[in-house]
């Protein structure tokens, strides 16, 4: 009965109760489906080989507990470096997408000039047309610029990838800022730069958080561009690093499980901490 109270509001009638039970039943079942594979992998990463195969569904016991997989991963690959590369690329690209996106969104919504419509249209196209389709020429360009196997190449491409949606979301937001605010500043002869950096930019913070979320996830998770533009050992991102590692040690179950766990857990921790903001950003109507 105590358990039921968690799921049901107080004072529910029998009819409402059976409906409520059905809803919770379905949602709970789907939650299990969504989490089960991930939990199985994490759980088994902390077991020895015997434990993994003898009873995959059991939690690690004192007998089967083992960190040998993690030791192997850390020994055979530069996991820390991969994580650092991913972090560096993501932070730089997201930071620049937000800043340059806000500046461009401001310019396109506030000022009227001849090519405004064309540029707005170009950015809008980028929301729907995936940047990957230009890979052949992106690779040529990166080769010509001598940027192959550099994190710079990834940052540049990811900025180009993230800007269209950022400009769109931020422009929508700029339009909601009262014009009087800017006009008043102009009357006081405040420069356009100061208007943007000290009045507009602080007001854009909530929209910038939304943009950060939308931009960050695809960059962190991307395999395509790291594989093509920066596959070297020193510039590997974590997604590419795990892909290469698992490909190489596919028969070594303890290592594979540990490598996957090491890629999953940090994301899950961050997700748990920021899920509220993230979901608010997703559902705030910015992309409706």
């Amino acid at each position, binding site marked *: 009965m105590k358990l039921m109270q968690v*799921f049901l509001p107080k004072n529910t009638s029998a009819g409402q109760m059976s409906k409520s039970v059905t*809803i919770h039943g379905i*949602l709970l079942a789907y939650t299990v489906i969504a989490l089960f594979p991930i939990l199985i992998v994490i759980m088994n990463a902390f077991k020895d080989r015997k434990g993994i195969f003898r009873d995959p569904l059991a939690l690690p016991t004192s007998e089967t507990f083992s960190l040998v997989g993690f030791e192997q991963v850390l020994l055979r690959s530069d996991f820390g470096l991969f994580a650092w590369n991913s972090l560096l690329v993501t932070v730089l690209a997201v930071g620049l997408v937000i800043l340059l996106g806000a500046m461009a969104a401001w310019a396109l919504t506030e000022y*009227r*000039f001849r090519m405004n419509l064309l540029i707005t249209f170009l950015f809008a196209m980028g929301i729907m047309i995936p940047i990957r389709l230009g890979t052949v020429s992106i690779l040529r*360009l990166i080769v010509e610029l001598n940027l192959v196997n550099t994190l710079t190449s990834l940052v540049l491409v990811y900025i180009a990838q993230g800007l269209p949606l950022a400009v769109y979301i931020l422009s929508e937001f700029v339009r909601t800022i009262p014009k009087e605010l800017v006009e008043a500043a102009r009357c006081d002869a405040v420069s356009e*730069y100061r208007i943007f950096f000290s009045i507009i930019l602080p007001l854009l913070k909530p929209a910038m958080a939304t943009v950060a979320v939308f931009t960050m996830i695809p960059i962190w998770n991307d395999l395509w561009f790291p594989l093509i533009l920066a596959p070297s050992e020193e510039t590997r991102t974590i997604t590419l690093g795990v892909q290469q590692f698992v490909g190489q040690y596919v028969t070594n179950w303890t290592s594979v499980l540990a490598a996957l766990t090491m*890629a999953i857990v940090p994301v899950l921790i961050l997700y748990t901490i920021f899920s509220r903001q993230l979901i608010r950003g997703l559902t705030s109507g910015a992309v409706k």
Partner: protein
Amino acid sequence: MMFSKRTKEHKPFPWHLWVFLGPGLLIYLTFSVYPLLDTLILSLYEEQAGQSEFVGLKNFITLVTDENWSSAFWNALSNNLQFFAFHMLLQNPIGLLLAVLLSSPKLRLASSYRTLIFMPTMLSVVIIGFVWQLILSPIWGISEEFLYSIGLGQYFDAWLGKEGSALVTLSFISVWQFVGIPMMLIYATLLNIPDDIIDASTVDGASPMQTFFHIKLPLILPTIAMVSILTFVANFNAFELIYAVKGALAGPNFSTDLLGTFFYRTFFGFQLQQGSSTMGAAVATLMFLIILVGVMLFLFFIQRRIQRFQF
């Protein structure tokens, strides 16, 4: 008000405008617009011994008719259509169902369900691919054991390894991962429907089912349309899942080949076939056209018929 045109013409060159717009625009033009246009142009050329020569539509004709190329291309396209159909038939209805359940009034733990169900969507497709490869592996036997425990053991098979079932299995994995997106977007739309409308229909004696089909469903159709086009673009651009689970060869016997993997192999080469940037550009151009046509159809037919409601 914005600057009127007249005052603008008398102003000096608007430096601030280009300081704001310039850096972002420059990077976007250099690394996105230019490469895309360059790819479209490159698809009309042929490269031999470092010399490139204009050949018109020859690469495209080769792709769709040549015996060495066409079967691979049509195979990838047809697989891609199946992959997309699977998402439309499963991902969006399941997402809709979950969103409707989540938005039930006075539902406890709604935010916990929402957070947990959305979790797989956050992880890299590559990681998810590997996770499912392990879960479905006959060597490990988790799925087999599970099916036996619910009495369906005889149906277990090495699904990912069989030509007939590999693509369907990969579609299931992708649907499983991305069901959170339709769920979240539809849920947000449902929450935005004002209570008055729902109350009014209840007062008028509409059953919950009627309320759903006559009031809520029309209001979430624009969201469903948007989710569909997002799914379309993502599916026709998919690569990672196939590459992680089946490699660039999209085995067994190319049965899981999508346009993304086909593009990758064409560009970089595989086994005995040499990579070709012009043929790669031709594949990318076709993908571009497919996506463009899809997006246009969406904009002109679906979007136009759907009224948008503002509350």
